[in-house]
């Protein structure tokens, strides 16, 4: 044990006598928070989606109450559970309480700040709002004083499969509800407030160890989890009451995620830095638009969409081959420069294929407009439909189509990763020369990754052309490549979940925080700098990647090994056991 057992650098002896006070302080803070929502936070209706009523909390404030109740439980439990025992060891009460305290402060602060900005001055903050801020300060200080808990053991509890499945279902339902709720918020302040709340709630759950238990449930029932997650995504449009605005964002998120997953093969698995990846999405989109039967297209051949999709993928991967064959002999910085240039060459070429010097294929900077809506067996993607008596609009149709494409891409990614090809890729990333000397076809595998990733981006591009209705060269600028790369790095290179989360964050935030659009790049720059400083392996870390970034961390290496053993036992229960190792 270190001399400082709390988050403060004050010796433990000096803090010892304040422990009970801190627990009580936390409970008081949470109680103050609950009292505050019974008062109006502001009389300005426009702030925080209306928090003007007394004794009638707004939906947003109910979330805040939830956080406060969790804080009460976490702060109070150690007072009740004085004897060491299972319930005491399962959960890291104190550590969780600290983060719940931080959460109260952060939400209180964001709430007051949002009221101040949205209603034109802190003068409009009413006693309720100030009380929430005070509650936050008390909560955070109490949390800081608390000693850290020992490692929670909840992640190691053996649970009945049925209970695990119910937990998965509950967790996913909560995610669906939270996503629907977040998208339904109209004001930017309210959205930020909710985001702060959700982030700190998640952090609290992670720190208490409850999340570890969920992770175990998920790991034990991977197939069910994946199917359930797709089901949740599938029913998402039904929660939107036919609203097109949110479905449009959701579809963009899916397109962005699918492209980022393709890039993840190149960057995350093989370790090649590609700065022009958006060109492959663009190639797919242009191919699809040209073959769509649009009046603006100069090629009067209109194959069925399923054919167009495959052609788009092939055109993209052909471009991948063209750029990859000569350049994949160089690596590192050189490859980054070459691909960066390729992205620009693609955009400028599309701009110049306007018939003035050469063939007219893309109408130059006007692009190809009026790409017709897709239609399958009489099901027109452009129309709103009644399904189970619920109205779903145009964007929901494309959402479902994109979900299918994303599923295909995920299967390709995961299955390739777990094959001789995936092992070869990781070997190349670890030590290219040794891989070559062990008979791995390094050049062929790099080309395969490049062309394969491009193919997947081409698939996504084919749908994007119809979704966007018009395809123009200026949609495919370098900035988009940078954003794709940021999504991969932010989420976690080499992982599926991480990249999905990263892509969602990078696509959703700018849509919801329109007022911030001028500072968007600055915000992402800061975000990336902080990520690289505090968690370079991304939100969800690939086990191997994590080791590369924390090479000196022996404890982490042991953990990862445990995980790999568990993973291995899970898939080869009959194989030679690893008992001796433990």
């Amino acid at each position, binding site marked *: 044990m270190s001399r400082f057992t709390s988050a403060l650098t004050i010796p433990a002896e000096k803090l010892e006598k304040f422990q009970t006070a801190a627990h009580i302080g936390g409970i008081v803070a949470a109680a103050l928070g609950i009292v505050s929502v019974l008062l109006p936070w502001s009389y300005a209706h426009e702030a925080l989606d209306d928090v003007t009523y007394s004794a009638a909390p707004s939906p947003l404030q109910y979330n805040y109450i939830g956080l406060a109740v969790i804080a009460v439980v976490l702060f109070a439990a150690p007072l009740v559970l004085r004897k060491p025992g299972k319930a005491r060891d399962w959960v890291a009460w104190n550590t969780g309480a600290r983060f719940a305290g931080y959460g109260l402060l952060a939400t209180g602060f964001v709430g007051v700040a949002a009221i101040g900005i949205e209603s034109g001055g802190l003068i409009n903050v009413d006693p309720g709002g100030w009380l929430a801020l005070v509650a936050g300060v008390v909560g955070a200080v109490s949390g800081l004083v608390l000693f850290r808990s020992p490692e929670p053991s909840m992640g190691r509890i053996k649970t009945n499969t049925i209970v695990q499945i119910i937990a998965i279902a509950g967790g996913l339902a909560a995610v669906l509800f939270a996503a629907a709720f977040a998208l339904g918020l109209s004001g930017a302040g309210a959205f930020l407030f909710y985001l702060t709340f959700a982030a700190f709630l998640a952090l609290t759950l992670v720190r208490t160890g409850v999340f570890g238990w969920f992770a175990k449930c998920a790991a034990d029932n991977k197939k069910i989890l994946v199917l359930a997650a797709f089901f949740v995504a599938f029913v998402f449009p039904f929660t939107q009451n036919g609203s097109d605005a949110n479905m449009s964002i959701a579809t963009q998120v899916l397109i962005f995620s699918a492209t980022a997953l393709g890039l993840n093969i190149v960057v995350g698995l093989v370790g090649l830095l590609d700065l022009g990846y958006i060109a492959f999405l663009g190639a797919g989109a242009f191919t699809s638009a040209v073959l769509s039967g649009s009046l603006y297209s100069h090629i009067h051949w209109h194959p069925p969409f399923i054919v167009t999709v495959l052609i788009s993928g092939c055109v993209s991967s052909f471009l991948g081959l063209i750029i990859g064959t000569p350049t994949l002999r160089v690596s590192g910085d050189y490859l980054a420069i070459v691909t960066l240039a390729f992205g620009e060459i693609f955009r400028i070429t599309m701009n110049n294929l306007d018939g003035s010097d050469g063939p007219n294929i893309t109408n130059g900077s006007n692009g190809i407009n009026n790409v017709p809506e897709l239609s399958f067996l009489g099901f027109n993607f452009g129309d709103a439909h009644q399904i189970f008596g619920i109205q779903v609009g145009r964007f929901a149709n494309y959402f479902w189509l994109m979900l299918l494409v994303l599923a295909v891409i995920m*299967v*390709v990614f995961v*299955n*390739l990763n*777990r*094959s*001789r*090809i*995936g*092992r*070869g890729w*990781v*070997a190349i990333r*670890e*030590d290219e*020369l*040794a*891989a*070559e*000397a*062990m*008979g*791995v*076809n*390094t050049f*062929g595998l790099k080309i*395969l990754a490049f062309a*394969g990733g491009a193919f997947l981006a081409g698939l996504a591009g084919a749908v994007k052309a119809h979704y966007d209705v018009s395809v123009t060269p200026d949609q495919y600028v370098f900035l988009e490549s940078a954003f794709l790369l940021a999504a991969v790095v932010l989420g976690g290179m080499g992982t599926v979940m991480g990249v999905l989360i990263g892509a969602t964050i990078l696509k959703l935030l700018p849509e919801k925080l329109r007022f911030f659009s001028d500072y968007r790049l600055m915000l992402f720059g800061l975000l990336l700098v902080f990520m690289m400083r505090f968690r370079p392996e991304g939100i969800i870390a690939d086990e*191997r990647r994590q*080791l*590369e970034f924390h090479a000196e961390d022996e404890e982490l*290496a*042991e953990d*990862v*090994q445990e995980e*790999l*053993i568990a993973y*291995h036992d899970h898939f*080869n229960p009959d*194989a*030679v056991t*690893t008992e*001796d*190792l433990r």
Partner: protein
Amino acid sequence: MTAAPAPATDAPVTEDGVLLDARNVTMQFGGLRAVGDVSMQVHAGEIVGLIGPNGAGKTTFFNCLTGLYKPTAGSVTFAGQPLPPRPRKVVYAGMARTFQNIRLFHNMTALENVMVGRYCRTKSNAFDAVFRLPRHRREEREATERSRELLAFVGLENKADTLSRNLPYGDQRRLEIARALATDPKLLLLDEPTAGMNPQETREAEDLIFRIRDLGLAVLVIEHDMRFIFSLCDRVYCLVRGEVLVEGAGDIVQNDPRVIEAYIGAPTVVEEDGNDA
């Protein structure tokens, strides 16, 4: 994906049993002649040693054989065929190597490391892998089984799921040998397999190399540990300043005054254990 040629074990060996035949291999880096006019034969089932003071060009010669360098002059034939100057194709042809400074895939488990070695003897392509076709599943199963056998062969069966970076040094050396064996070689090239080992580990390595020879493989080994090399090898080549100084059976080379001079530099002092230069 390019298809791998048939496993090397089926390839014919020349009638006189010469597996590796290097003739007048020269490697010139600008004005520096690292390897000059070296000729060497390795017969099937033979253990051949390659010794020489630091900087004698032993590893450079290895790199010429395994396709990392393209020799400036000279020819290398393997089992009667000229060796292609690409490391990967050399492995396909049936020659695998280890590295002087261990080059394992550190963040992969021991088993995965060996399975990378199986890469060149398996054929399932991206299509097989994506759709989990029978060929992919059969090859995955076989590769796993074979890799576990090889781990057991080198004595690492209990460490299959250990990340290779967490293995002790001696185990890493053995894992590198297992990875090379996974490519089904006919000739194994070991670059200082006992560097940094204690006497106990060195004896185990010696035993392992004998067992590899008993599998029917030829072994070409670079070493500095003289006791190790003279008890192990059927024939020894001594390389000095890029050229073969002496070649012959262990005791002949051991007692050759020129070898002693090259190592120790003082012909009057004769020590049995002229360890290292």
